[in-house]
């Protein structure tokens, strides 16, 4: 909290318009949801300005101003929209009061370098606001589904009970549905079977391909590379149509000539199709790590008498492992999220989670989809966090600083 720059109070010509803009911005949302955006902007701006004038000229006491503002906005929120709105009101009251003083006292200048021009100060904060806005736009759609998944009704609707934070408006029944419904359980199981196997295949083949393609003596390696990563570039629907006909023939042969079980063949087809989709991700990440790999290490290993396989597993693999793991993670997510190819190639016994969510959305808009989405978001976060922790740990063990 060391202040870099001495601060001084700012004139009203700066404080009031800025506070009004902030108030108007929040008012826009409240106003829009109540019918009139313009009224919201005006009322929000007016209230913010009146508040600022009151703090500065009448109350002259920051603590008292804070308490009063928070209480006022909280009460307003409660009066208009119940408990949830009251919480929003409390937060907003705290913010607008803090914001007014922050501007008026010139506190925004305190932690910046003294020689910055006003333009640079403005940009410093605009930049942060823009970053915050981008982050909000990215994350809000994901966060919105989470409370909806606890809806007590079977619709994608914030009911009045939910907005009042009434416990009766919430329930775990959609989670219960996911865990007890056969269709959901089977598709979840299918996803858990298909995605890991497809990942293992893509990681093995993709890593080998990347190592081969990074050798300078391979003829036409750019062309081969382009072909190998084409599933990532070609529109998925085209790959899917092609795969449908290609794997139908293979499947017929496996079933007809080799007499394999129909369900088993179905899994083989989907796993192979997903492995093909995952390979480009592995190739790209592993190729990127191989750029930093010192080739003299493999020569040194050969010099010591290690055969190429030993060299690969003992020398090269540990060093390119981060690339392999992140490639594998992408391959896993590709398969786990994939809906187009599996719709074409799979039959109903290979129905995966995304497929079930897709048909669920189309035929029956049920919040069970949201419950599943919430669970999947949780799994994804856990997965990424685990991999990141493991990676840091292994780097620490090998004496590197985590990057």
């Amino acid at each position, binding site marked *: 909290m060391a202040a870099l720059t001495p601060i001084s109070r700012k004139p009203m010509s700066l404080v009031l318009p800025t506070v009004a803009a902030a108030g108007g911005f929040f008012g826009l949302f409240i106003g829009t949801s109540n019918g009139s955006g313009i009224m919201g902007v005006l009322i929000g701006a007016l209230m913010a300005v009146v508040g600022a004038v009151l703090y500065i000229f009448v109350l002259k006491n920051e603590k008292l101003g804070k308490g009063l503002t928070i209480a006022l906005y909280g009460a307003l929120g409660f009066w208009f929209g119940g408990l949830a709105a009251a919480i929003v009101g409390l937060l907003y009251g705290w913010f607008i009061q803090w914001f007014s003083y922050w501007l008026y006292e010139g506190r925004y200048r305190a932690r910046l370098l003294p020689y910055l021009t006003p333009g640079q100060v403005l940009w410093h904060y605009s930049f942060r606001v823009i970053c915050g806005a981008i982050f909000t736009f990215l994350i809000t759609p994901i966060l919105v589904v989470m409370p909806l998944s606890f809806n007590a009704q079977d619709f994608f609707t914030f009911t009045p009970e939910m907005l009042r934070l009434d416990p009766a408006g919430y329930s775990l029944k959609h989670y219960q549905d996911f865990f007890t419904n056969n269709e959901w359980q089977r598709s979840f199981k299918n996803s858990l079977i298909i995605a890991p196997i497809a990942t293992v295949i893509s990681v093995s083949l993709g890593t080998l391909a990347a190592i081969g393609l990074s050798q300078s003596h391979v003829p036409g390696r750019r062309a081969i590379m382009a072909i190998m990563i084409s599933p990532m570039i070609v529109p998925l629907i085209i790959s899917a149509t092609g795969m449908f006909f290609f794997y139908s023939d293979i499947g017929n042969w496996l079933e007809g000539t080799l007499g394999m079980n129909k369900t*088993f063949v179905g899994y083989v087809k989907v796993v192979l199709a997903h492995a093909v989709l995952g390979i480009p991700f592995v190739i790209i990440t592993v190729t990127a790590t191989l750029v930093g790999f010192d080739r003299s290490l493999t020569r040194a290993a050969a010099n010591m008498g290690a055969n190429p396989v030993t060299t690969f597993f003992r020398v090269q693999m540990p060093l390119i492992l981060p690339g392999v793991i992140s490639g594998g993670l992408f391959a896993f997510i590709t398969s786990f999220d994939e809906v187009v190819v599996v719709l074409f190639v799979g039959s109903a016994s290979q129905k995966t989670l995304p497929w079930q969510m897709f048909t669920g959305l189309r035929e029956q808009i049920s919040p069970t989809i949201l419950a599943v989405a919430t669970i999947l978001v949780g799994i994804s976060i856990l997965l990424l966090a685990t991999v990141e922790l493991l990676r840091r740990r292994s780097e620490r063990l090998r004496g590197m600083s985590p990057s």
Partner: protein
Amino acid sequence: MKTKLTALAVTTALVAPAAMAQEMTIVSWGGAYSKSQLKAYHEPYSAKSGVTIINDDSSAEAVAKLRAMNEAGNVTWDVVDVVASDAMRLCDEGLAMEIDADTQLAAAPDGTSASEDFGDLLVSDCFIPQIVYSTTFGYRTDLVGDTAPSTICDVFDTDAYPGKRSLEKRPINNMEWALLCDGVAKADVYDVLATPEGQDKALAKLDTIKDDVIWWSAGADTPQLLADGEVVMGSTYNGRLFSVIEEQKQPVAMLWDAQVFDLDGWIIPAGLSDERKAQALDYIMFATDTQRLADQAKYISYGPARKSSAPLVGKHAELGIDMAPHMPTDPNNAQNTFLYNYEFWADYRDDIDAKFQAWLAK
């Protein structure tokens, strides 16, 4: 060597059940409708025969997928639930198997032959009717003011009932309703619609509410929009509205006026192996008998397609309310119905579709 043995053992284990496991893939519409079939048909059939039934909710793309499967020589479906018009198309293209109602379907308990029991609902040689449903309007009771809408033309009356309406994004039904409300007599609707002037007339009527329409394409859309209060009224299948009103307890009511009757039922894809064909026929014989069709009505408010099933329709399995008054076939509901003309739409669908899409984009 050891790993090879394990691999071999795993492969054998996976290959071996081929002969034993009896599985059927049955394609349907998903949601509450599939659930009603699960309870009324699949579960009793599995218990009786030991066959595992796998659901594929792909009826919406059934025609396109069956074409592709047929082309690839890899038909993975055993029995498919489609609307009557799709069944006719599939039958014409040779993608569905022809069924002889009297020998391949169960007779009514009193001995009436299946063809007589289904009557004129057997609209195609490949089609085994299952339910009668209607497309009709639901409205929000709390958003329509003091006088609730009572006729289909209230949909076109934006002065009396301001707010959005949801209509299906296709000409079928909408064009007929528009003409009815533009003063065309019910008997003349299809004659008028066959002329370009008549089609323009229908579109002109739809034009009057175009700005207030939200177009839907999935059966679940209108229930969601009604529950949200985003529309004041909207068209959808009567079973969906029943679920919104009775099961979900939403402030919604149903308009039984000029609702369009349609049929839904089974087909068996052409080109199945003899073993699978026999299995599919066995299932169809079981699932379309008098009792089974009546049982389905315990779970969803669609009318059974057999005449002999109607007296057996009982109470809702979970709510315990009488299902008969909720059936589209109930005399009170069927006072002013509109009969969907399959032949007309088979002949004019492509032309009117193009016109409708162009009008939508305008």
